[in-house]
């Protein structure tokens, strides 16, 4: 027998190494069951609590695509379950079998709905299996061209500052009223300025200011007519040096109100699984969700669609959610009042 040539010996070594590696991997796989086995070959339903179209639907469909890339054996379908300001869809999600095959997206206004024990709420956000939040939505106070010049100080010195809001009982109106209380502003909220109607109202001059999310008011400020007075919460997209509402609060109550809104601002475009999901499945889903949201292909697509992404992991969202829901009673009754409910 002729001795093996060095090159051939190398090949054999490699082959042996491969066999060994495969064997170890197989052994490992046998020893540790695949944490995503419950998803393989199954259909993952992603409930969106709005009608087709719009921001929430876009985020959900974008994330659904990214989840499918992470889970090649799983079909991810988006289901629109609209109604009652995200409550219907979230009720549906909360009532789904907690097997990890149903997840959903809804807005942070539901925290207010739960806090004031709004009729129709059949979920407990403290118990949800949080996968994470895809974006941060700092709230901003925007002044229009007709507002008194001189920033917040000028606004404070003015009586009956007209704020446009979506309507009594909505998060938009509640946040304007809570901020006015925290910052000692004398405001009148005028309903019926939902969506971008406030934009026109400010341009026409009938409204002096409004409160909303930075993502929806950024264009208005960058284009010229809007002045960014202050922000609640931070984001990479906010201009440097933007004053924070926390700097202007008058008392402890004001600080607590601002802290509430600030926590909510971290929870943009939430995704959750129903309560009661086994912890190992929740962990597995959290990891897949995190991987999907940091996937470069996903980030590139989000940039194309102009959907800002600043993810907060599930464990952190769960902690924030608990902190928000533990609102002291005095602030809760303030919230009830500002949402048009009975103050008793």
């Amino acid at each position: 027998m002729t001795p093996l040539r060095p090159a051939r010996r190398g090949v054999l070594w490699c082959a042996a190494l491969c066999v060994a590696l495969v064997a170890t991997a197989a052994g490992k796989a046998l020893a540790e069951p695949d944490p995503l086995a419950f998803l393989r070959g199954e259909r993952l339903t992603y409930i969106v609590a709005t009608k087709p179209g719009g921001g929430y639907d876009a985020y959900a469909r974008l994330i659904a695509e990214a989840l499918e890339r992470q889970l090649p054996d799983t079909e991810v379908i988006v289901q629109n379950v609209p109604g009652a300001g995200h409550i219907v869809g979230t009720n549906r999600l909360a009532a789904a079998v907690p097997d990890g095959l149903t997840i959903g997206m809804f807005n942070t206004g539901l925290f207010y709905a739960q806090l004031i024990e709004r009729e129709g709420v059949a979920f407990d956000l403290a118990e949800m299996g949080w996968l994470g939040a895809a974006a941060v939505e700092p709230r901003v106070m925007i002044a229009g061209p007709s507002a008194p010049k001189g920033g917040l100080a000028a606004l404070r010195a003015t009586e009956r500052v007209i704020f446009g809001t979506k309507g009594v009982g909505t998060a938009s109106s509640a946040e304007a009223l809570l901020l006015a209380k925290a910052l000692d502003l004398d405001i009148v909220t005028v309903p019926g300025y939902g969506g971008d109607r406030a934009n026109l109202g400010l341009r026409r001059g009938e409204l002096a200011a409004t409160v909303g999310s930075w993502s929806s008011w950024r264009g208005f400020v960058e284009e010229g007519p809007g002045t960014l007075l202050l922000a609640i919460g931070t984001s990479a997209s906010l201009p440097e040096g933007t004053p924070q509402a926390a700097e202007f609060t008058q008392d402890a109550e004001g600080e607590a109100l601002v802290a509430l809104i600030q926590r909510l601002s971290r929870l943009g475009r939430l995704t959750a699984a129903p309560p009661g999901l086994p912890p190992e499945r929740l962990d597995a889903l959290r990891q897949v969700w995190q991987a999907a949201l940091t996937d470069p292909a996903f980030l590139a697509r989000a940039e194309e669609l102009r959907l800002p992404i600043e993810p907060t992991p599930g464990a952190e969202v769960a902690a924030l959610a608990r902190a928000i829901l533990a609102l002291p009673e005095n602030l809760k009754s303030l919230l009830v009042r500002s949402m048009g409910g009975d103050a008793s």
Partner: protein
Amino acid sequence: MDAGTAVSALLALLSSPRLLGLMTLAIATGVALGIVPGLGGKIALSLAIPFVFGMEPLEGAVFLVALHAVVHTGGAVPAILLGVPGTGPNVATVADGHAMAQNGEAGRALGAALLSSAVGGLIGALALALTLPLLAQLSLLLGPPEFFLLSILGLTTIAALSGNHLGKGIAVGAFGLLLACVGHDPLTGEARFVFGQLWLWDGVDIALAVLAFYALPELLDLTLEGKVSRTARGTGPGSVSAIAEGIRDVLRRRWLTLRCACLGTGLGAIPGVGGDAAAWICYGHAVQSTASPETMGRGNVDGVIGPEAANNAKEGGALIPTLAFAVPGSSGMAILLGGFVMLGVPVGPQLIAGETDLVWSLVWVLALANLAAAALLLWSAPALARIAHIPIAPAMPFILQLTLLGGVISAGTFWALPLMIALAGLGWLLKRTGWPRQPFVVGLVLGQLTEISLHQSLLIWGPAFVLRPQSLVLLALLAVGLVLYLRVSTRRRASPEAPVPAVSEGLAALLSLTVFSVALFFALGFSATASLLPALVASLGGAIALYQLMRFLRQGDIHGALRPPTVTASSEVVWWALMITAIGAFGFGWGGFLATAFVLAFRFQVTLLRSLTLSGGFALLLSLLLTRAISLG
């Protein structure tokens, strides 16, 4: 925006096979969805949005705009031929268009509707192109006080739409206003008339209400009568000469066409007014300006031209604030805007300043789609016009399902079914007793705008809001309109005495009185602000219903009550009830399949195999639509 960009956008559009293909597909789909009663523009968009996700922004935008632009062109076809509006804004066309078809002038009405639609669409596109540079100034002129006055102007058309039954018209309009109050009141946060039902929080969907109140009663009558209209006189129903006659009508009434197209564009551009209101306001204008007001509602071609020019023109108008400020001009535009967000199309000043070629592409798409849709339908009009003369009863189970599905999709819940049935029953009763039904939509569409803009104006300006210069101009217009209407209506008073009220009349009055009284009872439980509008309209409607009831008791044919309904009518209603119950119990898939097969086989004597195949295929299609596009709770 220079002409160079405009031309290059057109060339880019025409030289891209992919864009042309998408546009063709969108036009065909839009026209088809318009023709099918029950599936209007909003539903078309809602169904299409999940499919366009992932397309290039330009491609997706072209598809959605072309799709939405032509739905009302298609919607005129069933409005005229069957008296069943294809979409909400086509309701205004029914009155005269369907009357023309019944007079044997289906072809003429179609020709007039299609050409005026095309002209309206072109004017809308032109307005969009011309105003884009000046938009910022234009749309900042009108604020809540003007919206309030415009909505009052819209509500006064109830008078014109009521014909000789002003009192009944106001009562029906009050019912529409009452229904507009359902849901969470933005002024107080109170839930009005929701009875603990989550799905009612967002209010009664307009598409659902129109389908239930207009389309279902028409469908029921179609089945009861077996077929629609018979040729009574005049030229052949679908002959080319009849269609040409309709085209000549539009040319003869070119100023009316142009005025309604401009009015429609303008109204479309006002956020919150929307297509339904634009069509009705233009119908009102046609009533004011026609040479023979006594024939309005009985087959006057002006009553077709006015609303049809308006409902296509308002698309261009509605796109103006949608594109310029990202403020949707109508509820359909709100969905379109949602679609744009999903496609990553920038809207608002960013779009106007930075993406001029995209804007021009959309202007061209709007113009081309309107022309293509009208041409397509004119070409097929002779064949379509024959629909009015063939028995369509066997198609009823399918149309019924589509109509119910349309309502359910619009409302987003199966709970829409009982509401639709209740509204359909009321609509049918009113139709049978000759109460005007049109004021209902006017009230429903304008209710919210009226209430919210009044409160906004009072909160911001106080009662002096009417003294703004823009408001004064509108007030003057309002006065002129009223004077014109009074002149027309005194001319019309010569019409014959009201007939002796029949028993169904008494029943309608009693039912209305009950509805208004119950509504008033609940309304008085709301806070002062929240109860103002509902309590006011419920009292008004109740008073009129009480008057009608007294009139019936004094002069009516009370003994008619003892006469049983005809056998055919009751058996037909049983078939309907069977289908609706099956769908309610087992859903559109299985329930629809079994019920349709049963009705086809036993009511229409279709062979069992064919019944099963037809209904099976249809059910499969519907369930595919439901599971892939929309989920219902």
